[in-house]
């Protein structure tokens, strides 16, 4: 700008003055990137730093260490809860969980809670690894999709079935009662069984029946024999009495006949 101004003054009338020369691109500090002088460019290219390469690249030597993902604290808590649930429960029923309105769900939970049956929801990602390691391996196919568990420290199959009958959205798939895996029908049959005391009484009665039958069988033949002998004696004594009577009658008949003959 200043050079242009100087140039203008110089050019005003007298023409081009050699003292004032138009120098293009005079500024060295520019606002834009300015290309280096060609010789400087060549020098920079020649003197560029080349880093030393190792003989074996580091990628081949150092092993790839994957960062270990730390487990979520919530997952640990859920796993602990699953372990405690399976350890402390005698009855574990697995059901298919379809959509159920919240009021009905609340009512169902309340009715089950009265019989000390708890409703538990666990994610399949937590339950399946635990089951595959524990003794409940055969329950693995049940934990697919949306499922819920009904657990209880006591065995109350009848009450549970009665409550589930009123809730058509919850379908019983299977159960593990007293370390025995049962299907739907198995749970129904189990609920129809009588109480333990009645069954024990029936077993004792059956066993004692055999023993009593043996005793009766052993006594049967001598008793029969004595009865037959008694009958025989009675017949004999009855027959002898009749013959005496008959003999007496015969003699009485012969007597008059003899007397008639004597006359």
């Amino acid at each position, binding site marked *: 700008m200043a050079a242009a101004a100087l140039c203008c003054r110089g050019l005003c009338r007298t023409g081009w003055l050699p003292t004032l020369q138009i120098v293009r691109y005079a500024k060295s500090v520019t606002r834009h990137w300015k290309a280096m002088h060609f010789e400087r460019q060549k020098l920079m290219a020649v003197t560029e730093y080349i880093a030393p390469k190792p003989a074996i690249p580091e990628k081949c030597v150092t092993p790839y260490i994957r960062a270990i993902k730390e487990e979520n604290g919530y997952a640990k808590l859920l796993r602990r809860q699953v372990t405690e649930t399976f350890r402390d429960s005698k009855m574990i029923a*697995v059901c298919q969980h*379809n*959509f159920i309105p919240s009021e009905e769900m609340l009512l169902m939970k309340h009715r089950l809670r009265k019989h000390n049956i708890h409703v538990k929801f666990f994610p399949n990602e937590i339950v399946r690894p635990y089951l595959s390691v524990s003794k409940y391996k055969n329950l693995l*196919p049940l934990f697919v*999709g*949306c499922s819920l568990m009904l657990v209880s420290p006591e065995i109350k199959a009848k009450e549970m079935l009665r409550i589930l009958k009123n809730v058509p959205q919850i379908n019983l*798939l299977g159960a593990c009662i007293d370390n025995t895996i049962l299907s739907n029908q198995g749970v129904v049959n189990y609920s129809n069984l009588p109480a333990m005391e009645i069954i024990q009484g029936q077993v004792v009665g059956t066993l004692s029946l055999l023993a009593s039958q043996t005793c009766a069988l052993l006594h049967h033949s001598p008793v029969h024999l004595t009865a037959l002998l008694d009958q025989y004696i009675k017949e004999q004594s009855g027959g002898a009495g009749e013959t005496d009577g008959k003999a007496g009658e015969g003699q009485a008949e012969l007597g008059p006949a003899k007397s008639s003959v004597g006359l």
Partner: protein
Amino acid sequence: MAVPKAAVALRHVKSVAVRFCPFQTNVETTRIFLERVNSKKARASNINCVVTTDVRHDGSEPVVDIMFADGDRLIMKGANLTAAEMLSAFNSRCIAKDLKAEEKTKKKSA
């Protein structure tokens, strides 16, 4: 396997009967279909539709038996089907029935 989250409409369905044995390994898709059919929106679309579930332990194949209101019947054996396929087959039939119903109403109005 991502199952599409589109709602199932039971408008033209009279009844749905699902039968499966839960201890088998090929039951997952049938159970997912059952969850979808029992979802809130599906139940709200038709209150009169009866959904019955038959849980057996006889090693039988999982079967879904759908009876439509106009007498059609759709039986799907879910042993080798994916949930997406079952849902798409069911939805396509529902859409076809919707179109038929629309055509009928148009003819009646015309």
